[in-house]
Structures are given as structure tokens and as C-alpha cells.
């Protein structure tokens, strides 16, 4: 009996059929789930449309967005060749909306990307090192968190004098704390798992562990959160422009257009509401796509 227990041979090999038939990576499963989510796909295509329109603006805009005309001021939608009417200086709304998309999308995406890099960096450092480094970083984050985002964005941008660069800076600063927090929470949670300990016991350096093992686990929730911030960023950026703190006239920007057209709502209400509708559609699309992405990635494997 003892010999039978001790002999090894073939009894250790597992030749039973595997429990899960084909192997699938995590991202492929996410893709598959997304393919069945029609709402998300629809709005994803809208985003692509907006991005394409922004990139190809010079090619597809029917008129020069800055060309004013005293003759054709505040014309309604569909008036002659002005598909969407004209603004208070006679400029074609459609062209201005297309060009405005460049500005608004850029000011929506860039701060989030920058804040993810910077905030993510501090979050990973805080989460991985723990101790007083963590406390220091998170306390500073808390201080910035103590301001409502609109207030902080307006205050920073306003005191620095407005303009696109200051607006980008202000928005990035507004988003860094929340991204730092999310990244720190994810990092701390991953760090306490056994496979990180196992990697440490393999003799790996901290950097190697972070980049090879931890990042691919942290990226998921962080990217979802960042994508949900894009719509907020678009809203805030347009808000800054609306207050005159973002883009300078005569550059086309949805928020700025909304602000200058405000006086004319008694004359051409529909035209004046158009820039806001653009902001709304962009923000809505990013929101829904980010929600869909979150649902697709929430796989209880």
C-alpha cells in the first residue's frame, strides 16, 4: 500500500477534459460583450463622427467659420445655403459648430489624459509605497477635493487670466485628485493580493512588479473612471468658455458661442440653442459609452 501511494507515474497527469473549452483573454471577452450592446455601439459611432468631423473640419465645413457678414445676421435654420442658420455676426453656424467641435473635444480630452497620467502616477506611488508617502499624497488630494470642481476650475482659470492654456491647466488640476484617489484605491487593493507577494518572492524589483503585474490589473477600473470624466470635462470646459475664461473670440467654441448668442435668444431662439445641443450630444455620447464600457468590463470571471 505504501509503495502504491509512493509511486508516481501517470497518476498525476490530468487528462480529463478541461472545464472551459476555448480559452479567452479578458479583453476578448470584453469585446464580445460590447458587440451585443447596441446602445453603446450607436453612441460610440457618434463619438467617432464627432472626432472625425473635428479632424476633417477644413475639408467638410461648408464655409469659413470666421467670415462675418452684416447682411446675413441671425438667419434661421435652413435659410438659403446656411444649413443651420447664422450667428449674430453673420457667420455660418454649421461651420462654426464643426470647428467648435475641435476646441471643445480637445479641451475635453486633453485634461483627462493629462490628469490620468499625473494623478495615476501619484496614485500608484501612494498605493504601492503606503506609509507616510501615502498619507502625504492623499492629504494633499483631500485639500483639493475640498473645492467643488466648477469653483476650482473657475478660480484657477480666472486668476490666471483665462485663455486656452490656463483653461487646460485648470481642468487638469481639477481632475488630478479624483484620478489619484481611484488609482490609489485600486493599487492598494491589488497590492495586498497574494500574487504580488509571490512576485516579490521571485526576487523582482518593485518597478518590475508594478509594471508587469500590477498595472494590467489597475488599468481597467482607472480607465473606466477616466472615460466617465471626459463628459464632465467637456461640460466644464464649455462652461469656462461660456464665462469668458476659456477660448478667446473669435475662435469657434461651443461654450463661447452659447455665451455670445445668449443676447439673441429673443430673435432666433433655435439657432442660439444649437451650440448647447452640440455640447449635450457630445457629453451624452461619452457618458453612455463609458457606462457601456464599465458594464462590459465588469466580468465576474
Amino acid at each position, binding site marked *: 500500500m505504501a509503495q502504491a501511494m509512493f509511486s508516481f507515474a501517470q497518476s498525476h497527469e490530468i487528462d480529463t477534459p478541461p472545464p472551459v473549452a476555448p480559452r479567452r483573454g479578458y479583453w476578448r471577452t470584453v469585446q464580445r460583450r460590447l458587440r451585443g450592446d447596441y446602445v453603446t455601439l450607436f453612441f460610440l459611432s457618434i463619438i467617432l463622427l464627432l472626432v472625425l468631423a473635428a479632424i476633417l473640419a477644413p475639408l467638410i465645413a461648408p464655409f469659413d467659420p470666421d467670415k462675418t457678414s452684416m447682411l446675413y445676421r441671425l438667419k434661421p435654420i435652413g435659410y438659403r445655403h446656411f444649413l443651420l442658420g447664422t450667428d449674430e455676426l453673420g457667420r455660418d453656424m454649421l461651420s462654426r459648430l464643426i470647428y467648435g467641435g475641435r476646441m471643445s473635444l480637445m479641451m475635453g480630452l486633453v485634461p483627462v489624459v493629462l490628469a490620468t497620467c499625473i494623478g495615476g502616477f501619484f496614485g500608484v506611488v501612494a498605493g504601492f509605497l503606503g506609509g507616510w508617502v501615502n498619507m502625504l499624497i492623499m492629504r494633499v488630494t483631500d485639500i483639493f477635493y*475640498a*473645492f467643488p470642481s*466648477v469653483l476650482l476650475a473657475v478660480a484657477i482659470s480666472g486668476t490666471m487670466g483665462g485663455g486656452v492654456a490656463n483653461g487646460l491647466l485648470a481642468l487638469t488640476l481639477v481632475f488630478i485628485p479624483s484620478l489619484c484617489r481611484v488609482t490609489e484605491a485600486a493599487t492598494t487593493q491589488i497590492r495586498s493580493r497574494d500574487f504580488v507577494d509571490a512576485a516579490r518572492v521571485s526576487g523582482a524589483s518593485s518597478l518590475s512588479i508594478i509594471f508587469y503585474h500590477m498595472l494590467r490589473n489597475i488599468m481597467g477600473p482607472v480607465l473606466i473612471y477616466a472615460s466617465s470624466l471626459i463628459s464632465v470635462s467637456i461640460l466644464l470646459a464649455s462652461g469656462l468658455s461660456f*464665462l469668458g475664461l476659456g477660448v478667446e473670440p473669435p475662435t469657434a467654441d461651443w461654450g463661447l458661442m452659447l455665451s455670445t448668442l445668449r443676447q439673441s435668444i*429673443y430673435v432666433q*431662439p433655435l439657432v442660439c440653442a444649437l451650440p448647447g445641443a452640440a455640447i449635450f450630444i457630445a457629453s*451624452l455620447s461619452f457618458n453612455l459609452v463609458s457606462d457601456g464600457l464599465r458594464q462590459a468590463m465588469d466580468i465576474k470571471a
Partner: protein
Amino acid sequence: MWLYAARRVLLAAPIALGVTIICFGLIYLAPGDPLESLLPPEATQADIAYLKKVYGFDKPIPVQYLKWVTRASVGDFGKSIQTNRPVLGEVTLALSHTLVIAVGAMLIAFPLALALGTLAAFHLGRPPDRIATIASVVGVSVPNYWLGIVLIIVFAVELGILPSSGMGPDGSAGFDLTQWSQLRYAVLPVLTTALVPLGIIMRSTRAAVAEILSQDFMLTLRAKGLARATIVQHALRNALPQVLPVMGLQFGYLVGGSILTETIFTWPGTGFLLSKAILTRDIPMLQGALLILALLFVIINLAVDLLQTALDPRVKRG
């Protein structure tokens, strides 16, 4: 419990301190001397020096900060350069106006959001839920300044039944809550401000209640044969600790982030005051208003935190 409360308040102190530093230091971010931008270009050096002395800008920055903070802690935020009136007075007045909108929006949005969110959670996946979800996503994505404009277009321009701006027929002098002729000026601002919190809180409520409903103890309650209303009560009571912080945060945003709505409706609240201060570079006003708003936000968050701890028996205390 009180020990925990004391500890939380103590923890908030360094944050408040950091907030004061930021509020004070913000104006030094910009290139150039903050005071010089106020004066006309022909001002002589003597004028600038005199102005600096009057407002205390000639001392080194840390000293200025200390003086400002110590005075602020007793309520003296200096005088506005624009109006030459005490900053604290102006801010409190503006705050009262903002609170009219904030409280009004809260009274509409919060109960409605709770009701709709709970309704959606009880009918997960079915039409009421889908409509509610769409409504909340719309609420979160819509730029509230645009919404204000749209409402103005609909009600003031097209229908002409509500005023388009201002705080009362005689401008922004006083505000009497009891008279409809004045109250009607607040209708559009309140509606505009209420939509975003409505969307956010509805989403939170739906998520929280749905999670509670999926737990086994709710099944037990239904098996016991309790009436629908009682079950809803139980669900809500359990979901409340999760929803409360979101509500508090939203209320904080309502008070602190009102600048856009107030600009549209020319409502003389704190947001409007702040934007004016930024544009005219009214430094004491800017610092004071910013600090008061930020501290209010911190206090609201702290209060919500303590309330949540008091309500939720699972949170560890002490």
C-alpha cells in the same frame, strides 16, 4: 461615537488649513503683480506703493497670509476693493440668495430622485427603469447653463409666462419668499439647478436599492407577506446610508458651484459675486468668497460623513 466625531473634526483641520493656503495663494499663481493689474497704466510708483500699504501688500507673502488667516478666523475678510464694503457682509448676503436656489432645488430634486430611483430599482429592466435611467443619464450629461437658456427660451421667450433673469421686479435689491411676484423669478433657476442632482441622486438611489433588493433578507421580508409599502420602507432605510453622502455632496455642489446658473439668470448669489471678483480682480473679495465657499463645502461633507456614521450601524466607530 463622540470620540469618532472628535477625531474626524480634528482630521478636517489640516484640510481646512490647506484650503486657506490655496485660497490665499491662488492669486499669486498668475504672472505679474496682482495689484498692478488693478490700476490704470498711468499710475505712478508712489500710487502703487500707497495702495500696497493700505491693503497690506507690502509685507512678505507668508506674513500676509498669517495676517489674513488670523483675521479671517474672526470673520474679518477685509473690504472689497470694488464696493468698499466688508467682504463678509457681501458674501453672506449673496449666500442667502444662493441658498434660496440651492434649497429650492434640493426640495424638488432629492425627494423626486429618491422616489424615481426606488421605483426604477423595483422594476429593474422594465420600462419605468429604462425611462428613469435615460432621464438620469440625460440629467448628468446636460450642461446646466444650456438648460437654463432652453428654459428661458421656452418659458420666457416663447410662452412669456416667466421672467428671464434677475431676482425680482426691482432688480436684485431684496427678496421676499412669500410673494409670488418675486418668487416666480426663482422658478426657472431652481428648475435648472435641480436637474443635474436629480440625475445623479436617482442613479445612486437606483444602484443602492437594487443592491439591497438583491440581498436575501429582502426575500425573507416578502416571504413574510409584508405589504409593498413596508418593503419599500425597509429597502429605503437600508439604502439611505449609501445615498446620503451623494446627496450631501450634491448639496455642496449646489451651494459652491452655482456660478454658471447665476450668470445666466443674473441671480446675485455667491457664484455671481465670485465671477465679478475674478473679472475685476477684487482680491480681498476673491479670497474671502472662495474661502467661505470652500469651507462650507468641507463642513457639509463632514456633517454628511458624521450623519452617515450615525445612521449606518456597520461603520466602525472609535
